[in-house]
């Protein structure tokens, strides 16, 4: 029995998701202590956590699908705003039924993602710089469509999005479960294997008869769907439109994936992205409650939102730095994968 457990544990330690899981559990424990267990383990707390952060979590999932194939997209964040803008403006300006408008928004998200894919995969441009420039293009388009933050969403939509199904399951969790289920199916098709082959080495994958371009374009298609859903979640959770929001989700999702143990190509699973996103979300939450705690206990201490922004951006930066430590804690396989990722990363960055 003990032998079996040890073997299981050893097996688990070699999984890509190990570091992400450990980090996530550590901050989760910290957060529960700060927030006190009685207040943390409530349905409403989970509901707020999930519904507020579902866009970020889904963005991280999309990003990890891309990273599995050895590509990435920095403009994912602003793509959420693009979906948001279409979903608000179509019903408001053209009188399109809300359902159709939202379907169009989802399609728009897919198309813009495919455009990024076209630039990176078909034109073979360096992924990081190209998507960084595409951020500017999408920003321009967003503001052209919607000049300033405006619009509203029907009450039934955001009520449904914020609701709790069966008394314990938040609606946002259902969306996440649906995405994960679809992914479980995709993972088991031959395409799932092809992704790893292409991510690891496109040339070798080509040599064994896989079309790397098609595999990577398909990854952008899947990411487009996920980002589209994330954009709709953003719309439902904010219940308004803003053409310039969520831009930093791009780099945030990237750092989440790296934290979760994801590497550029051939290493890591979707759960890496999930735990990485969970880490960021929980840290953000813990910082919020810590600040609340500090202002309450220390008299006369005023902390404005600038400080909170500073801390949350510093955490992204520290998270990126933490990837060295997490990589060290892992076994040789991950170390090699990490070195390869850096080389690829350098190729993309420079």
């Amino acid at each position, binding site marked *: 029995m003990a032998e079996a457990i040890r073997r299981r544990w050893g097996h688990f330690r070699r999984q890509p998701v190990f570091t992400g899981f450990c980090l996530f559990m550590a901050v989760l424990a910290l957060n529960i202590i700060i927030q006190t267990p009685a207040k943390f383990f409530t349905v409403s707390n989970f509901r707020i956590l999930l519904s507020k952060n579902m866009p970020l979590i889904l963005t991280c999932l999309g990003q990890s699908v891309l990273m599995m194939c050895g590509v990435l997209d*920095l403009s994912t964040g602003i793509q959420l705003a693009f979906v948001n803008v279409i979903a608000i403006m179509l019903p408001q300006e053209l009188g399109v039924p809300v359902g159709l408008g939202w379907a169009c928004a989802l399609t728009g998200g897919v198309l813009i993602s495919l455009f990024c894919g076209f*630039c990176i995969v078909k*034109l*073979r*441009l*360096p992924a*990081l*710089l*190209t998507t*960084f*420039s*595409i*951020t*500017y*293009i*999408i*920003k*321009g*388009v*967003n*503001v*052209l469509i919607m000049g300033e933050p405006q619009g509203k969403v029907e009450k039934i939509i955001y009520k449904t999005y914020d609701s709790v199904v069966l008394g314990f399951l938040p609606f946002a969790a259902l969306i996440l479960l649906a995405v994960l289920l679809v992914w479980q199916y995709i993972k088991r098709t031959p395409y799932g294997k092809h992704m790893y082959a292409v991510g690891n080495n*496109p*040339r070798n994958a*080509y040599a064994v008869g896989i079309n*790397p*371009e098609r595999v990577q374009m398909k990854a952008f298609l899947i990411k487009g769907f996920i980002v589209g859903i994330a954009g709709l979640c953003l719309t439902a959770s904010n219940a308004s439109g803003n053409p310039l929001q969520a831009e*930093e989700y791009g*780099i945030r999702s*990237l*750092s989440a994936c790296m934290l979760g143990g994801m590497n550029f190509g051939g290493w890591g699973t979707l759960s890496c992205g999930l735990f990485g996103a969970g880490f960021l979300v929980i840290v953000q939450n813990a910082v919020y409650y810590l600040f609340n705690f500090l202002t309450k206990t220390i008299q006369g201490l005023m902390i*404005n939102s*600038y*400080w909170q*922004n*500073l801390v949350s*951006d*510093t955490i*992204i*930066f520290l998270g*990126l*730095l933490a*990837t*060295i430590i997490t990589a060290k804690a892992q076994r040789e396989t991950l170390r090699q994968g990490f070195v390869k990722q*850096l080389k690829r*990363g*350098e190729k*993309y*960055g*420079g």
Partner: protein
Amino acid sequence: MGSGLRIRRFVKYNRPGMALVIALFLLLITVLINPKSLNINTFGSILVQTMLLSFAAAGQTMVVISGGVDLSVGSVMSMAAVITTGIMQGQGGRFAQVILATVAMGAAIGLLNGVCAVRVGLPPIVITLAVSYVVTRLQYVFTGGMPTGVAAALFKKTVQYRIFGLIPAATMYAVVIWALAFFLIHRSRFGKQLYLTGNNESAARLNGINTRKIRVLTFVLSGVFSAVAGVLGAGYMGMSQCQLFDNYAYNSLVAVIVGGSLFVGGVGSYFGSITGSLVMIVLSNGLTVLDISQPVRNLVLGLVMVILLTLYNRAKPIRQ
């Protein structure tokens, strides 16, 4: 055939010259569409802005030649501008403190970038972007969102005054900074090692060059040059704001690429970056003259970069 070949060669190999041609062409279009824009004042402001951008591009050029990218240029410039007006408060005689404080700040941020990008080995574009977010947030925390103070009157004059109504007084700063950057990149031992590092890092290392030190140094110098550009920018604007110069990060990068540097490293010249800056400023001046709104401007800038990447930076196909 002879002239055709010569033109083709010029387009392909003389990127700075090509940038000058493009700038002239853009200026011509602007003047043709709106003849009123042809006045001495416009030329003066184009010159000053080109100088400012070329100062910021000096460090960026070094980083790009060594094979990296620095996106924290803009936020360092804004930070330097905030510090400048904060220290000066409209009074003269504090220039030395300003330079000391901003250069120290720029060097510190550059060192952080360099250590993270080179020692830790994270992709430079990601780490500099993350650092630039933190620096931007720091501006808000330090100033409460509303920076106070203005630049000293004399200092403002040394940047804004136009000799004969055309040549900006900032030229005297430009002579010093351009000479320094030109010396560093093209005439010093550091410059030679920089090109070698960017061209082939392992070969450079095997030749006894401390390539890591060179690459960290490029980031530090980039921070210092951007800090100086931020100080002069504050003098040009007269006041400061959080995120005032943020677009310089992207613009300097595009300017460097227009000027003929390649992202793969080892190729590029500072003269090219100056001509690239001229192209960027003439383009943005044209967009202003033609009364084009900010979103379309963003769109144009993004497209320019994607087109540049398509022209000069495509990877080799997998199928060979």
